[in-house]
Structures are given as structure tokens and as C-alpha cells.
């Protein structure tokens, strides 16, 4: 864990008088699962949009997958994967059509696509369903598929924005097993979640409050630092220090 996939230095984003990101500093290393936590309105979404090349910082410096988010946002977009519960796949296209669509966007050659598609369907045991519409799949399967397609172009890092909201407890855990498998295969994962047990699955966790990173460490380190047994306890102490 020495190569940095994300480097953030003094990152600031203002909207008028409002400072959404107030001098953020952190690095994400190759092959780690980095949990990006915070209360609603703490500035997580703003930071993720900047790191994905969708929004430009007011000041400061951020490199993602080797490219500068300010000067090379298009290069950043090509080299990352992104998935959220709200935006994933096209419901009225089939599994295979979605794969073809994403392959087209990321410029994957026909030969590569056919080989990777075969692998993906075999992995998920969905060979028989390749011509089914996404809308006909159960939610848990859509999410697994959405994740597999988000890393279809073999990005160095994938951003997962609340990927497991609303799914049943078994599917939620199976989804995390896919994340582990991807990490095992060398992909770096940047993930947000409201489930505190999922924070435990991360190698390191940062917690934002009011535009700043209030804490950043391993789950064990955070629990020790805040003198509590659970990530829930850590989150509570950081997000509401007066209680």
C-alpha cells in the first residue's frame, strides 16, 4: 500500500458564501477500501463530484488515478468507475445491451467486450438472463450487475455512493463480497454508506462534519481514539460532539 490513487491537498469548494469543502487533505492508496462517511449535508457529495471530475474545486489540488481533476477531468472520468443506488443501469435495456452501451462509452474493443461479458455473466451466474430487461431483475441483482459493469472497463478506482441502500441483509453482504473480490483483483474502492457495520469492512474510514474531515483512521484506530466499541459510537461522538 504505497502508490497513491487519490491525493487531495487543501481542497476547497465554495458555493457563494457557503464552504462545502473546507481544506480537505487525504490520500487513498492502491488496493484499499476507503470509507467516506459523514452526516447528511457534511459535504460528501460535493467532494465525490470533484473527485469524479464532475465539478471543479475553488482552490486546492486533487489527483485521481494519476490525473488532475481541475485540468484533466475527462482523463479522470475515463479512469474511474462510478455506481450509486440512484444511478446505475438502464432499466429498459437488457443486460447485454447495457454492457454494450457502457463498452461504447469507455471505448472497449468488440473483442474485449465479448470476452469480458462472457466472464462477467459466468461470475454472476446470469448467462441465461443476458437478454432479459434490467427492469425484470430483483433489486439485489441489479446492484451486483451495476457494480460489475462499473468496473467493466478495468478502472484503477471505483466510487460507490451508498450502493447498498434498501437491499435485504443477505444481498447487502453478498454485495460486499463482490467488493472484496474486486479489491483482491487490484481495484481500489471509495465507498459511502449509512450502515455503520459496513464502515467496519473498510481498511480506513474518514468522517466528515461541516465540510471538514474530522477523523481518518482504520476502524480499530477510530474506536480506540474515541473510546468506544462500535463505529456507531465513533460516528455519534464526531457528528454530535455536544452529546
Amino acid at each position, binding site marked *: 500500500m504505497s502508490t497513491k490513487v487519490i491525493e487531495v491537498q487543501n481542497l476547497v469548494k465554495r458555493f457563494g458564501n457557503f464552504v462545502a469543502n473546507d481544506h480537505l487533505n487525504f490520500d487513498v492508496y492502491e488496493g484499499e477500501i476507503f470509507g467516506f462517511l459523514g452526516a447528511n449535508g457534511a459535504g460528501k457529495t460535493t467532494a465525490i463530484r470533484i473527485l469524479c471530475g464532475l465539478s471543479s474545486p475553488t482552490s486546492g489540488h486533487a489527483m485521481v488515478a494519476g490525473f488532475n481533476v481541475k485540468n484533466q477531468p475527462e482523463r479522470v472520468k475515463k479512469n474511474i468507475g462510478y455506481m450509486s443506488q440512484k444511478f446505475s443501469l438502464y432499466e429498459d435495456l437488457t443486460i447485454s445491451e447495457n454492457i454494450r452501451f457502457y463498452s461504447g462509452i469507455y471505448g472497449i474493443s468488440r473483442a474485449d467486450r465479448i470476452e469480458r461479458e462472457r466472464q462477467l455473466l459466468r461470475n454472476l451466474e446470469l448467462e441465461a438472463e443476458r437478454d432479459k430487461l434490467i427492469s425484470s431483475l430483483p433489486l439485489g441483482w441489479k446492484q451486483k450487475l451495476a457494480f460489475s459493469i462499473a468496473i467493466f472497463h478495468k478502472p484503477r478506482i471505483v466510487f460507490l455512493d451508498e450502493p447498498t*441502500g434498501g437491499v435485504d*441483509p443477505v444481498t447487502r*453482504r453478498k454485495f460486499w463480497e463482490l467488493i472484496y473480490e474486486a*479489491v483482491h483483483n487490484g481495484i481500489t474502492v471509495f465507498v459511502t454508506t*449509512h450502515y455503520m457495520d459496513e464502515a467496519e469492512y473498510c481498511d480506513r474510514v474518514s468522517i466528515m462534519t461541516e465540510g471538514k474531515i474530522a477523523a481518518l483512521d482504520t476502524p480499530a484506530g477510530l474506536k480506540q481514539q474515541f473510546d468506544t466499541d462500535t463505529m456507531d459510537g465513533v460516528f455519534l461522538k464526531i457528528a454530535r460532539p455536544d452529546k
Partner: protein
Amino acid sequence: MIETYNISKSYGEVKALDQISLQVGKGELFGLIGPDGAGKTTLFRILVSLLLPDKGTAKMGGFDVVKDFRKVRDLIGYMPGRFSLYSDLSVEENLKFFATVFGTTIEENYDLIRDIYSQIEPFKKRLAGRLSGGMKQKLALSCALIHKPEILVLDEPTTGVDAVSRKEFWEMLKNLQTKRITIIVSTPYMDEAGLCDRVALIQKGKFMALDTPLGIVNSFKYRLLAINASNRYRLLQDLREWNNTDSAFGFGQDFHVTFKNDRFEKEELFRYLSEKGHTDIRIEEIDPGIEDVFMKLMGTPDKPQKADL
């Protein structure tokens, strides 16, 4: 206050609710726990008279939700799952609107919402669409309460809300309960089940269990071990491969494991893991939580069932 008898509802081929019966008493805080697509919203829409059941009957405060739907609507406060206030009205205008629709005023029932509304009152001129998630939720609850309902129906009020705001929301509900308001609330977060008086675990349109949180946990008759070792990725694979393992799933930093045959010595499993090269192995007998029970009851769907596709 809430009674349903054998409610069924289908959308085409999909059975959203399958013979649901339930009774909730006055002042009770009742939780409906289940994932997306389990049928929670369908049941709530029937209870608040926005949807007709195919079969079965439901009464709210003694009134039939089909025949006496007007009386039912006066009696209940409903907070739908999606934010359904007017984004282009201010906080105060939204509240005033809901008060007027029910023929009352903010002043008349201010006491009931004071604790909740006072937290967002400093922003009363702000447009509702520009509030943060936690603040929207407080406004929606205030609007659902402003006509002093006897029954509150809250559809996933804490979904997508951060852990701290979720805690605060449940404190508000506990507080409302002391005012003898009957509350039925749905949530996909299993950890919230323990805060209810009674809960139903719902999956695929059926109740898998209905009891007090303690009763549900006590119904779990299996041995449960929490297991940890230094390499989590390999540990899970090896646990699943052990010939006596029934299920193994991550729970925070540990894995919770159930077995085909519960009669074995812990050392046996320890030895197996050591032989597989694991270090820092920790194995502990634990009591189940609601989530363990839920997962046991639902089984482990490895593939989408043909019926789902």
C-alpha cells in the same frame, strides 16, 4: 387501532401482499422491518386508503379503510417514503398548508409539534426543497402531525438519513408515544427493530415473524459463533468451505456463522482454521440480533428465482 385481516394485493403476476393480518393497539409503536420490494409501502398505502386491497379488510381506529375512507383520513397522519412536501414553498408555508387542509391552524396544535418543529423553525423562510435530509424529515413529520392524528403511518422515514439523525428521529417517536399516539413505522434498518414495542419481519409480501423484539431474538434456536482472523477475505472462503458450515456472513468486524449440526467443539473449528494458515483467530459464542434472525428466516437466495424474473 390498526387491524387488518388477510390482506392480499397483486400487481399483475407479482404478489405484493399475501394474506397479511395484524393488530396494533392504542399507543403502540409497531415496526415493519424488511428490504425494498418486500411489500411495506403497499401495506401502508392500503392502510391510509390510497390503494384498494384485492382481498381482505383493514380498519383504522375502527373505521374501514374502503367504506369510511374520509373518516380514516382525518384520523391519520401519513409520511410517505418519498419526500412529498412542496419544494417551492417555504418551511412555514408547507406547515400552514397542511394545517389549513385539515381545517386547523399551526397555533392550535403547536404543542404537539413543538419539540420537532422548534429545531427547524429558525429556517422557516427557507424553501423546503433546499433543506438537508434530516431537516426535510423533521418538516415532513411536523406536517403529518399538525392535525393531531391518532395514528401515525411513517413509511421509511429514516432511509438515506445518517446514523445520528436516525437516532434523533427515533427519540422523537418515543416522545410522541408518550402522548398516546399509535405509530406504525417501516424501515430497512434492522438495528431500528429493537426500538419498537413489536415488529413484523416482512419479505416477499409475507410476515416471516411477528413478535416483540425480544421474542423474535429468542425464537432463534441455533448456535451462533462470531469469528475473526487476520485475513478476512480468505477467512470467509475457508469458513464457507468447512463441511459443517450452514451460513457465514460479515457482521461488522466479525463473521457470524451458523452450522448444519450444532453439536461440535469450538476447538474443532479452531483447528481447521489454523491448518488453513489463519492467524489471530478469535471464536466466540454469541446471542443473535434481529438481523441474524431475519437472515435465517429468509434463507440464502443464491440466484434470482425463476419466479422473480
